[in-house]
């Protein structure tokens, strides 16, 4: 039964900070994929994750994992989170403060296996913290414990809710590698909620873009985010940090994923849909970029 196709066709009315929103999701997730749910906050990504986990009940629809029905509003089926064999890694990690790192992982195991716990502790570089309570750990360490705990459950589906949002850039790169490694090791279907484009490109085999409660695009990250009409040779993704108006033009400052600052000249009609905080792609059109080795590197 491991790694079956997940079929989702659900509707859910929800209240977000931007008001009422209807989440309408219909999609199929193939086994072994690492799916990124991408979109702005309040778009419904986390709610979809919680619906899959069984923590939120959709208003109507069907959720199927292989041949197992997890939710069916017509037949009044709603399998409890306990019976779904999933692991959800929460945004706040939800580590149990009364337990040590080791006990947190032991708790998640369906059957106690201390050898396996030691193995997980070693993979995630947590050996020296095994007897420590989780409250004193740093954000990155907590994230690794949460990931190790989620793996210890041996889930059929691993759900990660913005796991790296509170971590600085360097640590984030390191932890992204760990998530990728964990996915490769186990081949578990993994769904990660993210609004970091860089993360999506690094990790995901498939991306589902959600906007205002609906899927607007899905596919491979390259296909989804690269506009095929663009024949550009340089494509950099980033987030708009500033838009300055100067006479007839605007200077848009974009910060890329690795904190590079890019300034782009834009005309009024170019910035119509742009505002600070929006994810964008900066690309070249008409010239050939030059490449050379950086001196002193």
């Amino acid at each position, binding site marked *: 039964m491991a790694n079956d196709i997940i079929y989702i066709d659900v509707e859910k009315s929800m209240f977000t900070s931007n008001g009422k929103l209807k989440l309408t999701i219909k999609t199929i997730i193939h086994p072994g994929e690492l799916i990124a749910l991408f979109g702005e906050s309040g778009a419904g990504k986390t709610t979809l994750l919680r619906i899959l986990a*069984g923590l939120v009940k959709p208003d109507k629809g069907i959720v199927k994992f292989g041949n197992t029905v997890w939710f069916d509003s017509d037949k009044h089926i709603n399998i409890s*989170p*306990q019976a*779904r064999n999933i692991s*959800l890694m929460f945004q*706040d990690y*939800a580590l*149990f403060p*009364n337990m040590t790192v080791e006990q947190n992982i032991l708790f998640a195991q369906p059957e106690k296996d201390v050898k396996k716990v030691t193995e997980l502790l070693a993979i995630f570089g947590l050996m020296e913290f095994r007897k420590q309570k989780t409250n004193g750990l740093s954000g990155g360490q907590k994230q690794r414990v949460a990931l190790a705990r989620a793996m210890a459950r041996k889930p059929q589906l691993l759900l990660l809710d913005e796991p790296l949002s509170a971590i600085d850039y360097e640590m984030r790169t390191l932890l992204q590698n760990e998530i990728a490694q964990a996915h490769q090791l186990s081949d578990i279907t993994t769904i990660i909620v993210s609004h970091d484009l860089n993360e999506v490109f690094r990790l995901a085999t498939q991306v589902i873009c959600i906007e205002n409660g609906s899927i607007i695009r899905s596919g491979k990250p390259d296909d989804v985010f690269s506009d095929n009409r663009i024949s550009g040779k340089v494509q950099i993704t980033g987030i708009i940090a500033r838009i300055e108006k100067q006479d007839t033009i605007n200077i848009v400052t974009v910060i890329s994923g690795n904190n590079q600052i890019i300034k782009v000249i834009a005309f009024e009609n170019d910035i119509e849909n742009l505002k600070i905080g929006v994810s964008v792609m900066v690309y070249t059109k008409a010239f050939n970029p030059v490449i050379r080795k950086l001196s002193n590197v």
Partner: protein
Amino acid sequence: MDAAFLQTLWVTLKLAVSTTAILIIIGLPIAYWLAYSRYTIKPFIEALVSMPMVLPPSVIGYYMLVIYSPRNWFGAWLSNVFDIRLAFSFEGVLIASVIFSLPFMVQPLQNGLRSLPESLREASYTLGKSKSVTFFRVLVPNIKPSLITAIALTFAHSIGEFGVVLMIGGNMPGQTRVASIAIYDEVQSLNFATANRYAFILFAVSFVLLVTIYSVNKKQDVWRMI
């Protein structure tokens, strides 16, 4: 110390320990239900649980006497089927004391559970753990300060109980005569030395209990937990 003095202290201690033990067992599930359920009747149950905090003890004592009376169906049923009479007995006082101290156990526990992040409970569920495993291994161990506060407050409230015990139990040595009633009785008999000893013991025990509560909750505002 004379035998009567020790006997009164023993009855007081027995009543407080039994009340607290029974309330831990029934208070935890009630607090859990109140913390997480969304039924419309919840405010009514919450109000009922908290009633002893606002009602005069004599009102509760009066109602308990009415319920215990063999003239009413419950009292009659107890008397006919089990040959038990609760009025003016230790067991009768114990039941009343449990009801009277209920909010002191339930409210700190309920507030403790509510203050835990929802994700702890959800994480345990998604890791495949049942509601009872989650409750005893994740939730209760993480509300230890609330649990200690609840136990200490219940205990302190039970040893200080006066009105309800007097209404239901009277002043029967070895049965229902507790320290607070003994103080009143000794003062009435102008026996100030004995009254003083009882008073000092109650003062010291209550003081130690409150110091315990404040020490375990150093970082938290105790009155917000009640």
